[in-house]
Structure formats: C-alpha cells, structure tokens
C-alpha cells in the first residue's frame, strides 16, 4: 500500500503518521469527518507500523499491540483464577502422593484438576510463559510508543491546522469583539496563572499553544519500567545463591547450625500465650485464642574450627532477638521467622544420683546432658562409662534395643559402673531419664535381663531428686530461615511502578491550541484524562477575558450528538 505522507502544509511525514507532525492535519482518517480526532501518541508514526515487515518486525508488531497485551492479561487472569479452585500443592508442607490426595479429597474433579496440572498452576510452564510474554509486551509496547511520543511532544508547532483544532474533544469558536493581539496576551496571562507554559506564534502573534503537566505522559512508561524490574527480580530469585528457604526446629536450650551457613541459632526460650476468658468476647470464651508466639533466639557465627569434626566450633553471638510472628530476626540478609511450634516435652539434662540399693547410699549427683553426653562421669567413688546411647529408645523385632530416630524423644543411656567392690569389668545398667511408668518397667526389665546375663548384680539404681535437677524443654519451635537477595530489587521495582502510576493518574497532560484568522478565534484543547477538568479550566480562562461560556458547551462530543 502506498501512502502519501506529505501534508498539505508541506511537511514530509514518516510512513504511518496519523496526524501531520507539523500542523496536526489528519493524514490517515478512518473516522467520520466531524468526530474528534484519534490523539493517541499525538498521531506519530510507530515502528510497528513499518511497511514490509520482516520476521523480527512481525514479532515486534505482535508484542507492540495493546490488544495482544490485553489478551495476555485476560488469559493470565483466567489462569490465575483456575489455580484457586482447589488448594495448590505448594500450600501443603508435605504431600507424598498428590494425585491420591486430590482424588480422595475432591473426587473426580480433583482428579481432573491434578491431571491437568492445575494443582501446580503457578509453577507451570504456561503460566510462567504468560508472565514472560507480559514482560516482553511491556517492554515492546512501551518502546514502540514512548519514543515517537517523546519526539512528537518535543517538537510541537504552535500554529495548527483548523481541522486539528475543530476536531479536538474540547472546542470553542467565536468572533472576537476586541483587539486580537491584546486578547491573546490577556488569555496567555490567564493560562500562565493556571501554571501553563505558553508559546505564542512569533510571526504574527495570532496562534498560541499552552501546555502543562507533560511529565504525566511518562507515568505509564515509568510504571512499566518498574514492572519490568519487578518481574526480572522475581526471575532472579531462581538463582540458587540468591535464595534460601529452610526450616530449623529447636527445643528450648538447643543450638543448631543453620544448614549451609556459618551461623548457629539457639532457642533460649519459647513462649506461647493464649487470651484469658476475661479478655475474650462472650462467643469466644473457653476457646484457645493465641495471643503470642515468641522464640527468644540468639544467632551465633562460627569463627574457628567450623568444619573440624574433632573440635567443637567456636561460636560468637552476633544478634539476640525475640522472634514473633510479625517480627523476624534479621542479620545481614539472613532472616529467621517464627513458623510453627509443637508442645513436646524433651529433657535437656538431668542430674541423677547413683543409688546403692544394698545400703541405700546415694552418690553424685552427676550432670547428664541429653545431647552430646560426655563419655565418663564421677559419682562418689564410682566411675560411670557411657557405653551406649539410644536417643529415641525402642525394641526391634527380636526385642533388641534400638533407636527409632536421632531425635531425643525418649533417651536411654547404658552405663558401665566401675569402682571399689565391683568386678574389674564393671557392671552394666540402663537408665531412662524420662519419668514414665512404661520407662520404669522397661528399665527394670532390661536391668533384670542384664543381671541374668551376669552383666550386673542388681546393686545400683539411678534416681533424680526433685525437679530442680531436671531441665527440660516444653516446646519445640520451628523457625523458617530465609535469604532472599532479590528482595531489594523487588521493592525498587514496586516503588518505581508506584511513582509511575501516581504521575500518570493524578496529573493530566493538558494542551490548549488557538489561532485567530482575522477576528475568528478557533480554540481546541486536549487532555489524556479528565476532559471535565480541562473544559472547566478553558471556560474559566475564557471567562476572565470577557468571553462567558459554559464548560459543557465546549464539549465537542456533545455538540455533535
């Protein structure tokens, strides 16, 4: 298609130009002759309107279309909505057999949902693909428009074609009763009072351009830049070194290394509080309404012997914080969040006495920590050697002692006691520090069987005198450890986006053109948003120059109806 892009004013326009770059006369006009002009991007030619597109141009053209962008938004929106029908797999902490779970819980529809991959909507290739396409569209749409718009706005001509003026949304025509040059001066002063920048045609002073808030035109593009930064930051979270998401469960008093870091964290104390009945309204009385979850935590860093299997690491405390649900511990990009807790009694250490049942004399006490217990203990004249530890005691199929796990749920210790009056090899006793009837029975049975085997004489027993000799943890607190190095970029992206939105939506770019031919005044005004506002402004300025007009009467759309 051949398009004559030379305007009647003599200006040669690039192909695709809608409104002459110089005088604004419409070149491509598929609208009814008296309807308002299409003023988008000031009618400038865009790259996407290039003739004879090659492959790159076609891709560019595809992504530069606002229509395509809207479709992408709508498809993403529908996809996102589908993902909320049933819970996503990611919302479960551990889900061994998702297919079975969805089938059991939600029936046939749940099965179809899982089969279609909708239970992982937001990690799916098509959803991420849509987000990437939206990102591409953001870049290309913006570039395709912002450059021509910038050029068009930086070389505006003051005198415009009559067609251009008469076909703005806000239009006024009259015959001036006063001296035109004087009137133009006066009108310009009024517009300046309203913070317009005013240019008057240098040749004869019979044309005027007033403009304000041009910066608001850049709002959408700044917003798009922010969104791009945001989306890139989201993608950057996939970089392993930038991201860590681990869980550490700690009993009170327990210290643990945070995996893959030189940091150690200690749970000094965990507190859970519930509201008392007199703090609760009638309907909630008697219910457990949580008030506070708090882990008093200390963060340590390892300064020496960190990876030495023989020596204990040297730890230096670096930060103390009471971690609550809305108050994580934060140290150099590492964050510890209160995630969960469990009420689970666990012994930290006990101070038992060694009791000689033959004469009822007790020796000790000696301190027995549940984790990393030392190998030898002194109790009076006797020496106890630790021969076996079962942190989570149980019996296997052949009734042999074993440990069910490495967690100190129900520890049992096997000691070899040596000392005066005992055989050289010593006597072997098992000890369960956790006080329960079942443990007592087990302990007696096992010691009895040792006796039958000749390993001991049944002379000794262990006894803890009073709770002051027991230190235990009531709660296990689970902390979520996070490193997210992309977060600053996410917030920067969001902030840029917000600045763009505010610029674009709370200010409007307003322009007023006029020309006087003899005594005939033709005025046209354009704004990208809020035509109501610009009509009021033009009417007020005209009013102050002695031309009384109702704002409504300036509306071109209404006049034509």
């Amino acid at each position, binding site marked *: 298609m051949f398009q004559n892009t030379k305007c009647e004013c003599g200006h040669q326009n690039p192909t695709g130009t809608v409104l002459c770059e110089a005088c604004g006369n419409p070149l491509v006009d598929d609208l009814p002759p008296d309807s308002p002009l*299409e003023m*988008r991007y000031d009618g400038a030619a865009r790259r996407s309107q290039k003739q004879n597109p090659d492959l790159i141009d076609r891709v560019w053209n595809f992504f530069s279309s*606002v*229509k395509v*962008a*809207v479709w992408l*938004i*709508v498809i*993403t*929106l529908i996809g*996102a*909505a589908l*993902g*909320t029908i049933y819970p*996503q797999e*990611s*919302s*479960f902490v*551990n*889900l*061994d057999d998702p297919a*079975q*779970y969805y089938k*059991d819980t939600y*029936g046939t*529809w749940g099965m179809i949902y899982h089969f279609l991959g909708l239970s992982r909507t*937001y990690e799916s290739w098509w959803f991420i693909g849509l987000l990437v396409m939206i990102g591409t569209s953001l870049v290309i749409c913006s570039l395709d428009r912002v450059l021509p718009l910038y050029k068009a706005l930086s070389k505006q001509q003051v005198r415009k074609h009559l067609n251009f003026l008469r076909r703005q949304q806000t239009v006024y025509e009259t015959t001036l009763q006063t001296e035109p040059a004087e009137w133009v001066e006066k009108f310009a002063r009024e517009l300046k009072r309203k913070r317009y920048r005013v240019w008057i045609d240098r040749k004869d002073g019979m044309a005027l351009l007033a403009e304000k808030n041009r910066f608001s035109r850049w709002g959408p593009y700044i917003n798009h830049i922010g969104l791009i930064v945001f989306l890139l930051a989201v993608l950057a979270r996939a970089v392993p070194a930038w991201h860590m998401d681990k869980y550490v469960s700690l009993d009170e008093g327990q210290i643990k290394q945070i995996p893959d870091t030189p940091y150690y964290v200690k749970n000094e104390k965990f507190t859970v509080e519930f509201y008392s009945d007199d*703090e609760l*309204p*009638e*309907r*909630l009385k008697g219910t457990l*309404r*949580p*008030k506070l*979850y708090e882990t008093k935590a200390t963060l340590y860093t390892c300064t020496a012997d960190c990876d030495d299997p023989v020596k204990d690491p040297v730890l230096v405390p670096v930060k103390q914080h009471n971690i*609550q*649900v*809305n*108050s*994580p511990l934060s140290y150099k990009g590492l*964050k510890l*969040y209160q995630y969960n807790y469990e009420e689970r009694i666990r012994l930290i250490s006990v101070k038992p006495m060694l009791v000689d049942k033959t004469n009822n004399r007790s020796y000790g006490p000696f301190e027995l920590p549940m984790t990393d217990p030392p190998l030898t203990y002194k109790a009076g004249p006797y020496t106890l050697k630790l021969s076996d530890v079962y942190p989570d005691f149980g019996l296997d199929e052949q009734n042999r002692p074993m440990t069910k796990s490495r967690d100190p749920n129900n520890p049992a210790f096997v000691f070899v006691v040596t000392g005066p009056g005992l055989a050289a090899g010593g006597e072997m006793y098992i000890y369960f520090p956790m006080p329960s009837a079942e443990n007592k029975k087990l302990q007696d049975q096992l010691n009895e069987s040792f006796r039958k085997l000749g390993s001991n004489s049944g002379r000794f027993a262990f006894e803890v005198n009073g709770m002051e000799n027991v230190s235990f943890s009531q709660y296990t607190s689970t902390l*979520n450890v*996070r490193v997210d190095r992309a*977060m600053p970029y*996410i917030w920067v992206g*969001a902030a840029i*986006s*917000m600045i763009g*939105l505010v610029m674009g*939506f*709370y200010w409007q770019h307003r322009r007023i053109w006029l020309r006087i031919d003899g005594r005939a005044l033709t005025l046209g005004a354009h704004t990208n*948003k*809020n035509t*109501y506002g610009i009509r009021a402004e033009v009417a007020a300025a005209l009013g102050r120059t002695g031309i009384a007009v109702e704002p*409504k009467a300036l*509306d071109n*759309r*209404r006049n034509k109806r």
Partner: protein
Amino acid sequence: MNDWLNFSSNAFIAAFFLYCAAFIGYAIAVAGKRWSNRDPEGHAKRWGRIGFTLAALGWLAHLAFFFTRWKGGGHIPTSNMYEFMTFLGMAIMFAFIIVYLIYRKVLLGAFAVPLVIIIIAYASVFPSEVQPLIPALNSIWLKIHVTTAALGEAFFAVGFAAALVHLIRVVDYSRTDKAGRRAQFWTEFMLVVIVVVIGFLVSVFGFRAAGYEAQFRQETFRVDLQGQGETIVQTVEYGLPPIVAPYNSEKLSMDPFLGLKEPLFEAPSWMNGVNAGRKLNTIIWSLISGLILYGIMRLIARKPLAAVIHPHLDGIDPDDLDEISYRAIAIGFPVFTLGALIFAMIWAQIAWSRFWGWDPKEVWALITWLFYSAYLHLRLSRGWQGTRSAWLAVVGFIIVLFTLIGVNLVIAGLHSYAGV
C-alpha cells in the same frame, strides 16, 4: 462492654439511619423533579444538598464509630469481616465525597449511598463483638495494608455506581433488535442481583429478629495428608429455616416455620466445605425473598425496574457518567496497587517470610488488579468507552466483592481468620 464500645455501636446505628435518610433525600432529588409546581433545577439542587448533608453527617457518625471502637477495642477495627465491611462502607463514602466534590452530580449520591447502606447492613450479618488480635494480625501493617486496600476498592465501588447509572441511563426501551434487548435484559439482571442481595439481608435480619433457630448434627468424612480417613462430628446452627439440611446430618432441633417442620432436602455430597449446607440454604432463601421482593416491585411498577429509573436520569449526560466512572477507577487504581499489592507484599514478607505465596486471597487481589489493568488499557482503544467500559466497571466491582467476601466464604486459605 466498655463505654467507648457502647458509644461506638450507637454511632454506628446513627450512621446507618443518617445514610438511609440521605438516600431518601437523594431519591426525592432525583425522582421528584417532575412533581408539579416545582422548578426542576432548583428542586434537584435543594434536595441534593439535603441528601449530601445527611450523607456527610452519616459519614461523621461512621468516623465516630470507627475511632471509638478503635479506642475501646484497643486495635484498629479492620480485623474481621464485620469490621472490614463497615470500614469499606466508610471508605466508599469517603470516595463518594471526593468524587462528588469534583463533579457535583446529585445522581451519583442516589446510587453510591444505597450501595454503602447495603455494604454496612451486610457487615452486620457478621458477629460484631471486638475480638482480640491473633499474633499474625498484630502488626502496624494491619493499619496500613487493610485501610489502603479498602480505600482503593472504595473508588472502584464509586466507579461501579457511576457505571450502573450510566447503564440505566443509556438503556433504550424503544429498541427491539437483539443488541437492544440484550442491553435491556442485562441491565435489569443487575438490578435483580441487587434486589436478591437485599432479599438476603431482609431474610437474615427478619429471622434473626424473630429469634429463629435450627440445629443439625453433621458427620463429615475427611482424608488427611497421611491418607488416614477420619470422621468429624459437628453441630451446624441455622438462623434461617432449613430448606436444605447439611449433607449427612440429622436434625437436633428446628423451630417450625409456616408448616415447615422438616428440611425439604439434603445438600449434595460434593458440597463438603465448611458449613456448605448452611450457605446453600442461605442462598436459596436469598433467591426466594429477593425474587418475591422483585416480583412485588414489578407488580407495582408494571414495567422493568430499569425502565422505572431510566426517565429520571435524563438530567445527566452519559459522557459525564462515563468520565466519572473512569475517573473514580483511575483514582482508585494506584491506591489499590499500593494497598492491596505492595503493602500486602511487604506485610507478607514480614509475617509469612515470603512476599508472595499464591494464597487465594493474594491471587484474587492480583486478578482484580489485572482486570482493572485490562480495563485501563482497553479504554485506549476505540469503542471501549461508554457502555462497554461501564460493563467492565460493573464486572470489576463484582471481582472486588468476590476477592473480599467470596474468597473467604468459598475458598478460605491463609486469610481465613478474616471470615465469619
């Protein structure tokens, strides 16, 4: 209950009645223009001013309710459904006042004020006592996030009200072609939906005032994550006569109502969500009472409700309504982005250790945002101003309501504490 809270609930009642009075003022302003012996302009102006004054007074009472409840309850009253919906009503009123001060269109009040009345009446369906904060909500972001998000949504609500006026204003009853009939049908349908919502409120408050009660014992079978099945027995309480009983339940007690002594049928088995049977029953009651209400109105008017309102709207230009609707949404969009997405992400990062987790509430906030983004982009294209744009504004507000209420009632997720 302390004195602050007593004062607060009185202020709420005062606000409610002032809004009702404001609505009557606005209705007279709009409907009474053709009454005899009157200058239409002067009449609309005078009653419009009365309506606005009453609405503004109502809003002051509403503010008093809010701040005294804050003082008396010890935390900002935006922490459960009752508090949030009343806050939303207050925010819509604020957005309306802003938009009204820009455009000075009396008609807008005639539609925005009843919307506020419906919203705060809906709020009152939920338990209104002050509940102490759970740890997750105990944060300064409860103040920042919830208020800004609600304010953004409030502007969308005003955009919706203007769009609705626009639709009723432009619907053309002389047209008999397909598109014309379609416009007539859907405009009327929107009004039917609103009447059904009113029907819901009427039935809930009617039966609550009458002290109606019914109880069921329901057994639900659930499979936990380890694949273990368990049966949970719970008591389900109804405030409306049970047309539908919960699935797999037995009646414990039931007040008779108009000879209804037994539930007519049981909810289907796939409705196994929390209180699904009761919710279905409520929907049925809302439809019944809403449709009866609508039927009565149709009988009195003898024409579609939109056709009753339509002639009173000729004082305003459709282009102005389009502009108002668009402007309200344009004002609301950055506020919504800030409150419902950015502040939400900041809080989620602090409380839940991740700024985004695809929780249903988060997703629906994103959907709302995407929808209004599409709306704003579509307005750039030719042909998407006016009626089509108005329909989008209506759909957008329905999405907002679903995000606020529907997600909590139907989907739940992490924001479930904001539910009933």
